[in-house]
């Protein structure tokens, strides 16, 4: 059954059948070949119960929040403000790319949206100020991936939903590794630009009053982040309620900055519906496949399979890491996550690993998938915002950050407390 699912999955995906549909097809296949009772009879109920979910409605809310912020011009102000604060470091404006991406990650739940936002704002500056395009664009692609790690994260909501683990706990667990990665990106940039100054642009310092004035543009985003994350951890609100609060907050910020119009509202709403349905087709398909796999006795087969291999828990995790890196070349974030959860998570948990911890490790690995060629969505998004140069430059520029993420993955394996410390502290 494991072989059937793996081969079927890759084969059908290669035929460019939509990912969500592939998951349904595999479920039908399990039903036909491996199950003694008809599982497809439960299809209608699966589709109903997996979409009738007060947890998942947090997804459209967080998408909408991001759409409002992106379309109301808040990004431009944030970027300019962060430029005032971090451009004195070796590497100059590149730090502003990472910092802006981090801030937007903290409010929007999507990596692609984050990268797209920062790229459109930052790219014209790079050309104006004469930056080396490689590292500059690579930093945007990499910084954008933080969107799925720093809470609120749509991917963590989906992970929590499919593995039935606590979403607030996952959010808490993602906070420290997410911020650590952002700091590591800044450090890597500074080191590279100290050794090879020609890769960065000119460092700039601004008079202190200007820096203070720039803070005004940052405060709303920081408050919004505090509101969303704070209300979840204080137990005032569920993630769904916090997301609704976030939507209201984003509206207020957009109004204050004068970025709300009828057109913008329509675009934000239809954009939200599009992304939500895209995610939901995959999530419902995965729920159905999960259900058929579990009913057909995947658990027993997995245990036998693992016993047959005779791997230690540590070796298992290393195999899983290699698997994600290889698959990550070809399959993208959410799809990669959702298609692997039904098999990989039970396998890892059976080896005694924590399901929350593994969620965070998986996020680091699929973040890497976003910036590894040939299929790396963030690379294309950043390339799309450039007027010149080849995609290879973006890939090359993203490489140092990719290695940083790999380092982070190994740190997480060596010290699980990086992720688990905060949730345990607040439990």
């Amino acid at each position, binding site marked *: 059954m494991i072989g059937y699912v793996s081969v079927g999955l890759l084969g059908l995906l290669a035929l*460019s*059948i939509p990912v969500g549909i592939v998951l349904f097809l595999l479920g039908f296949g399990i039903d036909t070949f491996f199950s003694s009772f008809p599982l497809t009879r439960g299809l209608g109920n699966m589709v*109903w119960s997996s*979409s009738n979910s007060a947890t998942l409605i947090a997804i459209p809310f967080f998408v909408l929040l991001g759409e409002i912020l992106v379309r109301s011009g808040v990004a431009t102000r944030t970027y300019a403000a962060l430029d005032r604060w971090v451009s004195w470091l070796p590497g100059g404006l590149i730090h502003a790319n990472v910092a802006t991406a981090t801030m937007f990650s903290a409010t929007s739940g999507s990596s692609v949206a984050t990268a797209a936002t920062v790229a459109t704002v930052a790219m014209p500056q790079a050309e104006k100020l004469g930056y080396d395009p490689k590292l500059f664009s690579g930093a945007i692609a990499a910084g954008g991936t933080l969107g799925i790690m720093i809470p609120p994260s749509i991917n963590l909501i989906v992970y929590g939903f499919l593995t039935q683990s606590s979403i607030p706990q996952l959010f808490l667990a993602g906070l420290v590794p997410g911020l650590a990665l952002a700091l590591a990106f800044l450090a890597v940039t500074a080191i590279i630009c100290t050794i090879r100054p020609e890769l960065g642009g000119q460092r700039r310092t601004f008079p202190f009053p200007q820096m203070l004035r720039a803070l005004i543009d940052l405060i709303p985003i920081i408050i919004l982040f505090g509101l969303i994350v704070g209300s979840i951890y204080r137990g005032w609100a569920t993630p*769904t309620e916090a997301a609704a609060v976030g939507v*209201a907050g984003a509206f207020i910020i957009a109004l204050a900055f004068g970025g709300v119009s009828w057109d913008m509202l329509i675009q934000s709403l239809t*954009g*939200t519906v*599009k992304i939500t349905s895209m995610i939901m087709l995959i999530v419902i398909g995965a729920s159905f496949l999960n259900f058929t796999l579990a009913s057909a006795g995947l658990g027993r087969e997995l245990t036998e399979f693992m016993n047959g291999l005779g791997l230690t828990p540590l070796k298992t995790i290393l195999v899983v890491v290699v698997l994600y890196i290889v698959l990550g070349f070809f399959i*993208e974030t959410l799809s990669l996550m959702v298609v692997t959860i039904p098999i990989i998570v039970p396998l890892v948990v059976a080896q005694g690993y924590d399901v929350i911890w593994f969620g965070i490790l998986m996020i680091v690995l699929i973040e890497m998938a976003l910036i590894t060629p040939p299929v790396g969505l963030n690379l294309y998004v950043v390339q799309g915002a450039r007027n010149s140069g080849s995609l290879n430059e973006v890939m090359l520029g993203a490489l140092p950050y990719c290695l940083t993420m790999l380092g982070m993955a190994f740190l997480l394996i060596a010290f699980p407390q990086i992720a688990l410390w905060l949730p345990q502290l607040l439990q």
Partner: protein
Amino acid sequence: MELKMIETLRRINRIVALLVGFGLLACAAFILADIIMRQVGTSFGGTEEIAGYTMALATSWGMAFTLLELGHVRIDLLRTKFQTFGRALFDVFSMVVMSAVIVTIAIKAWPVVERSITNSSRANTPLETPLALVQLPWFAGWVWFAVVSCLTTLAALGLLLKRRHEETENFVGAFAEQDTLQ
């Protein structure tokens, strides 16, 4: 003719998507109002339930819109290696498969609604919502998705047979996320 039909479907779906969007917005406002009311000690009750129904409806009715906006994720690694005709074959094949699956889902969704109607089932919650009231429009959304996806497949197939395959890219081609998120 095919392109005109797709254009009409797209226009209808944009209106549907906008209605869904406003529905989500209304749900967010409702949740917000409930949070505020809780601070003063009362509550509407049942926000969880209503949020769930909103999500189920938003999901089923948003699908067809996403289809025609090329929003459903496909891995097009192999597909991009081909010329327009080869790509059109990939696209039409994946549309045929997709339509078959969606029609199956729509058919299998009916017994869920039927049971709620015949048993006059009510949700096991404080609101005791008659389930058919929510499941009927939810089912209709999947039927709409099935209809749109079949019509789209026919349109693409028609153009392919007329050797106008380069025109199919626009409505069954691989997705272009970067265009829409900027």
